[in-house]
């Protein structure tokens, strides 16, 4: 595993940075938020990103993808994370797309992956419930056998990009108790299935999400992704990949928040001096910088380990998510504090990053959850 960008990766990174600067400054995110549109991103820009090949990065060529890895996707996500671009990579490329790629039947892949890679279909995973916290196996939504297929009932919360999704991959319990790893199925449910209700939710970071209510939704047997009852393990694999991708996006966000703060420290005067000359602030800035450098290494290691199917990949994903969660929160807390009063106003961008940091921290497990998982994987 080489922790250095290849020339190709450098090129992708540069293209993505240029694209973000031109088409997706933070002001665009602010406008989308102010507009209050539940879709929350620009389908047009999403299509452009797909045309640039980014949406298809981790999919095989036969489905219109570039057959590259998370290592390549990560540099795109980092660049977009810098300006809080809200396009649906997490929901569609990482969650929905990876679930279909890793667990889907040939027919399912043929039906959906080309549309995803082309930027034309949104497929998200509905895995979270009101009391599941970070436990992927805490599934109370029921899947009862019915007419050779299944009948699904329950409620999923904060389903990412639910308002724009063409289909949902819904985890539901076929058998077993509420927190058992076994007995969970993953079901492909098109958005127009009878008995589905999508209620848009407004989150603190203003990224699109929604409640998904399933009121006796009937799906055929071939709607199951992977083996029935064995989606527990599939979900873990998928969420590991999505977590690594989220970490790359977080890395971009925390670096941008730090850059904003550094600029402020070099421009803002107080008591006749630039505040960046105050030693206490300097040392704290160095501590933030240190955390960002460490975070970068862990993100690079996690995506490379996943690409290589390395045995310690899950452990490295936890290393990355624990660090990125803490580092992003630290960078934005320090950012707002060093900006002072104006950092508390909606007018300044630093607050967006603070909100995004917390939303990302609480997605796929916070730092404490991943420290515990890391220890468990290490046998203690």
């Amino acid at each position: 595993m080489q922790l250095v960008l290849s020339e190709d990766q450098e090129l992708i990174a540069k293209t993505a940075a240029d694209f973000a600067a031109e088409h997706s400054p933070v002001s665009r995110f602010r406008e989308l938020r102010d507009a209050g549109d539940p879709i929350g991103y620009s389908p047009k820009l999403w299509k452009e990103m797909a045309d640039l090949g980014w949406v298809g990065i981790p999919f095989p060529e036969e489905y219109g993808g570039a057959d590259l890895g998370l290592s390549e996707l990560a540099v795109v996500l980092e660049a977009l994370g810098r300006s809080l671009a809200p396009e649906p990579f997490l929901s569609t490329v990482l969650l929905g797309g990876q679930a279909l790629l890793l667990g889907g039947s040939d027919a399912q892949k043929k039906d959906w992956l080309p549309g995803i890679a082309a930027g034309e279909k949104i497929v998200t995973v509905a895995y979270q419930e009101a009391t599941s916290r970070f436990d992927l196996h805490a599934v109370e939504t029921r899947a009862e056998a019915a007419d050779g297929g299944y009948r699904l009932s329950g409620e999923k919360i904060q389903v990412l990009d639910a308002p724009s999704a063409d289909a949902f991959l819904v985890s539901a319990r076929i058998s077993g108790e509420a927190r058992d790893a076994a007995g969970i199925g993953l079901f492909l449910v098109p958005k127009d299935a009878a008995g589905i209700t999508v209620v848009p939710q407004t989150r603190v970071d203003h990224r699109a999400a929604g409640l998904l209510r399933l009121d006796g939704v009937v799906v055929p047997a071939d709607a199951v992704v992977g083996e029935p009852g064995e989606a527990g393990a599939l979900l873990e694999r998928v969420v590991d990949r999505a977590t690594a991708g989220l970490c790359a996006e977080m890395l971009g966000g925390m670096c941008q928040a730090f850059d904003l703060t550094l600029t402020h420290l070099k421009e803002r005067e107080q008591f006749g001096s630039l505040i960046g000359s105050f030693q206490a602030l300097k040392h704290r800035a160095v501590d933030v910088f240190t955390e960002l450098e460490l975070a970068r290494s862990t993100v690079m290691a996690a995506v490379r380990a996943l690409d290589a199917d390395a045995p310690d990949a899950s452990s490295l994903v936890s290393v990355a998510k624990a660090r990125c969660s803490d580092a992003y929160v630290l960078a934005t807390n320090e950012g707002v504090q060093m900006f002072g009063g104006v950092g508390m106003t909606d007018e300044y961008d630093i607050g967006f990053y603070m909100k995004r940091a917390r939303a990302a921290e609480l997605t796929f497990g916070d730092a404490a959850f991943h420290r515990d998982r890391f220890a468990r994987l290490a046998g203690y």
Partner: protein
Amino acid sequence: MADLSKYRSEIGSWLEANCPSDLLGLSMTAIEGPWGGKKWVPDYDSQRAWLERCADKGLTAPTWPTEYGGGGLDKAEAKVLSQEMRRLRVPPPLIGFGLTMIGPTLLQFGTEEQKREHLPRITRGEIRWCQGYSEPGAGSDLAALQTRAVDDGDAFVISGTKVWTSYADKADWIFALVRTDPDAKKQEGITFILIDMDDPGVSVSPILLISGSSPFCETHFEDVRVPKSNVIAQINGGWTVAKALLGHERSMIAETFGTGAGQRRQTMADRAKGYVGADAEGRLADPALRERLAQLELDTRAFSLTVQRSTDAAKAGHNPGPESSIFKMYGTELNQRRQELLVSMLGPNALGWEGPGFEEAELSVTRDWLRSRGNTIEGGTSEVQRNIVAKRVLGLPD
């Protein structure tokens, strides 16, 4: 002593007889309380009657002299009054910057005429006050203020902008620091002045915070004519007045966080169990969260014991000890940690901005967390506080 117990029984009877029954037991925190002023819309009609009755008896400002609308009570009597009010669960008739900030300042620095003009209107809740100190670009460096006051005979003509004026959109008058001598050294050349916000040239725009609320405003002055008789203490002598007032503000903030802590304590553990469950022994199921909660509650306990130590020492006649210098800093940082822990406890349920899918109490956690980030900035940043303690308490060199 005999007099005190007599006063206790008298005032107790009066409170029982006069407080409207629909107000009994209502908890009104400093934020939600009856601030008074021309624009005041009480939550309950009876609040207005209660205010009037108390004002007539001098109970809105119990220790102020009676000639200015106060109650003329000594400290011991005032303590009895507050004990009785707590015992009978009677809410305060009036709160606000008039009573806690500009009133005491006028008593200390004002002319007889100024006292007679403003204090009675404060005690009756007719005028709501706000504070005009900070400016865009000045931040922690208060003395760098730029709002100009140009001498024009019997008046000053004031131009400039104040930020972080709390509730300026609801206030009638503002007490402000303005620069009367642009050539003097920073802290000299500043004057403390009272401005009627109805005067031509005053305008207010609320500031939207990251938490979604707007407790603060920007207040603009465009050639506002203010009579020189509104200057408190000397022209160019405003820094002395401001310092006296600032010290007072910081201890108020510290008190708010210090005393607020105790009430929520039981709730934290119970709420945590609601979100992450309990183990077979009935303990909070997530041990990492449990330790974090224990650390927070332990620190909260240590902090309120320290506030108590300071109070007990004062009661015993000692001068304020060095411990009081840390209250603002530690209290606000503690509150931030409490809010962050609540967010961690709620997990993904703390990510709501609006319904549906989030309970009201959950949405409050999110907003309170965001709001708490300002605690270590407003009223003197934690950095400024540490500079002050290093210099004044520890005697470290510049």
